[in-house]
């Protein structure tokens, strides 16, 4: 494990067992999260983003199994660790999670305060006063008034709930934060505020972050690196700059085009990616993207391309993108 990376995911495969067979939600995905940096993990819904997050926090549903792979943190494999040890010492203390602050993310029958205190007490043996101090500090960090503490989740707005979820993630000063679609449920104005807040917090505190989203436009000013997922496979990986400037995988290219650009809205019609998401229980033969791919040739229907480095730090899984060849 290189000391430059705070998290190294290698060859991670997570499957769900269904009546028809395995659903390969995440298939041999590898990427590293360099220390202090932000990695954007992007893909449509069903691409395996949430499964990766659930695998990291070891909260997969009962029918899921990790087929292979490792998630290395400080030279230890999170997946092989004793679960109780992981829950107490790693989860939240070292790696915390900002989920989508949706309706049911907080237990509806306890106040915000009691849920936050419970979180701290699960990891640290400190007095109530000390815990409250920590809570006040993190509330301040997310610009929430103290009186939200005595409220129940249903009494909060979507934005407030999202801020509480962010504050909760920062309670124990983690080294890594996984922001999992933190803005999806919010309206556009609040969305911008939240992204800004997360970005600021990351700069101030210097934690590493995985920012999971289906909306590439959010990542533009936030992430240093970008990993594009499609059908459970990593199709492109590189610096945000490289990928935005020079997307190599046909899927990435289409994905980027699908972002509505407010400056050019008159010239461009809304772009969408034709075709349907692949069936992950019996995926198409060859490259998983081939049924929707405008470039697909014979080889694409035969075998699946591996992830290969095209230029320094820019990896892509496509036969026609090799060696920087462009087909357009």
């Amino acid at each position: 494990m290189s000391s430059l990376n705070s998290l190294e995911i290698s060859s991670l495969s997570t499957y769900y067992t269904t009546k028809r067979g395995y659903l390969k939600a995440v298939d041999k995905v590898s990427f590293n999260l360099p220390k202090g940096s932000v990695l954007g993990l992007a893909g449509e819904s069903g691409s395996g983003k949430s499964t990766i997050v659930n695998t990291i926090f070891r909260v997969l549903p009962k029918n899921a199994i990790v087929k292979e792979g490792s998630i290395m943190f400080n030279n230890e494999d999170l997946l092989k660790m004793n679960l109780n040890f992981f829950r107490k010492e790693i989860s939240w203390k070292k790696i915390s999670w900002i989920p989508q602050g949706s309706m049911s993310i907080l237990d509806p029958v306890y106040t915000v305060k009691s849920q936050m205190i419970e979180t701290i007490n699960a990891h640290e043996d400190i007095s109530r006063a000390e815990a409250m101090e920590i809570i006040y500090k993190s509330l301040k960090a997310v610009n929430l008034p103290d009186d939200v503490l005595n409220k129940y989740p249903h009494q909060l707005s979507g934005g407030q709930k999202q801020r509480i979820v962010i504050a909760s993630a920062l309670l124990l000063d983690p080294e890594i934060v996984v922001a999992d679609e933190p803005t999806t449920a919010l309206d556009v104005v609040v969305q911008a505020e939240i992204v800004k807040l997360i970005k600021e917090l990351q700069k101030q505190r210097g934690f590493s972050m995985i920012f999971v989203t289906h909306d590439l436009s959010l990542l533009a000013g936030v992430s240093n690196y970008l990993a594009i997922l499609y059908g459970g496979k990593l199709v492109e990986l590189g610096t945000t700059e490289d990928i935005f400037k020079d997307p190599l995988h046909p899927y990435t290219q289409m994905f980027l085009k699908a972002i509505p650009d407010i400056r050019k809205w008159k010239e461009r019609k809304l772009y969408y990616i034709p075709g349907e998401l692949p069936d992950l229980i019996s995926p198409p033969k060859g490259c998983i993207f081939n049924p929707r791919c405008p470039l697909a040739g014979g080889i694409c229907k035969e075998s699946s391309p591996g992830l290969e480095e095209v230029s320094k730090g820019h990896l892509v899984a496509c036969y026609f993108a090799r060696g920087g060849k462009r087909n357009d």
Partner: protein
Amino acid sequence: MRFSVPWRYLVKRIIERIILLIVIINFLFLIIYIIPIYVAHLNPAEFYVPLSYKGLSRSTEVEAIDREFGLNQPIFVQYIDYVKNMLTFHFGYSLIYDEPVSKIILQALPVDLIILVPSLILSTVFAIGLGLFSAVRFGRLSDSINTFFAILTYFIPGFWVLIIFLQIFGFQLGLFPTNIAQALISPSGAPLHGWAYIAGLIKFSIAPIIILALLAYGVRMALTRSYGVESMGSSYVTYLRAKGIPERSVVYKHVMRNAIIPAITRTGIDFAFVIAGSVFVEDIFGFYGMGELLYRSALTFNVQILGDAFYILSLYVIVVLLVLDFIYPLIDPRVKYE
């Protein structure tokens, strides 16, 4: 959060319930006065007199009752009187029992509470325990069996189980007293007092309490289970686990708290209707509560007592439901006074 009395809500609810009560009184007036007079051409006074009373002829009695209760007055005067009497609990005197009606009802009411309330509590314990047991084992064989038995209890006639139990364990094996009178006397036949009386009462009550609890837990068990399953799969449970909350806390503090709310709510409603359904257990185990009072009044066609007992039972239901309206928000923070 400081608790403040929700006056507006309180007043609105009370008014609603009073209207309901008046509707019930009108309904009773309809079936006890209007139907006999206008449909069956029967003097309601007939309902109030026994076949013989202190040697008076029946027609003399009926006349006396007519005067006493104003039953020969115009119907609207009777109506006003009836409503007034009901609202002020003036039920009059039962010639059949030779006692004031209110005294008869007041004697019957508490008897139910010894058996029905403990069994309700016990069945709630069963419901929550077994419901959570099933929820955490969702989809497994033990869950299926557990749930099937709970559904089965919806359809088991309580009186059937009670008589089987009574015959086998009471009569054949002699394991417990088969009626309350037997429980409250010593083997020599002298009535029990003090601790012995209480011990006898407890010994007698245990069997009906357990049986009733077993027959009634099903609905609430299914509620607890389905809400528990929903909770177990909800995103806040995933989030709690990720936050490193120990699994024990996740299940027993969070999932349980969420899953028992509907069962508790339902227990409240059952508490309101519990006395209304007590006829069978009282009849079979021979103790004299409201159910038995209703039943005997029906068998002896004592419409007077029947009407008043029914009114008191409805009043009890209304009051309990009203109290529940105020308790629910304390149990479930999502419910608001509105």
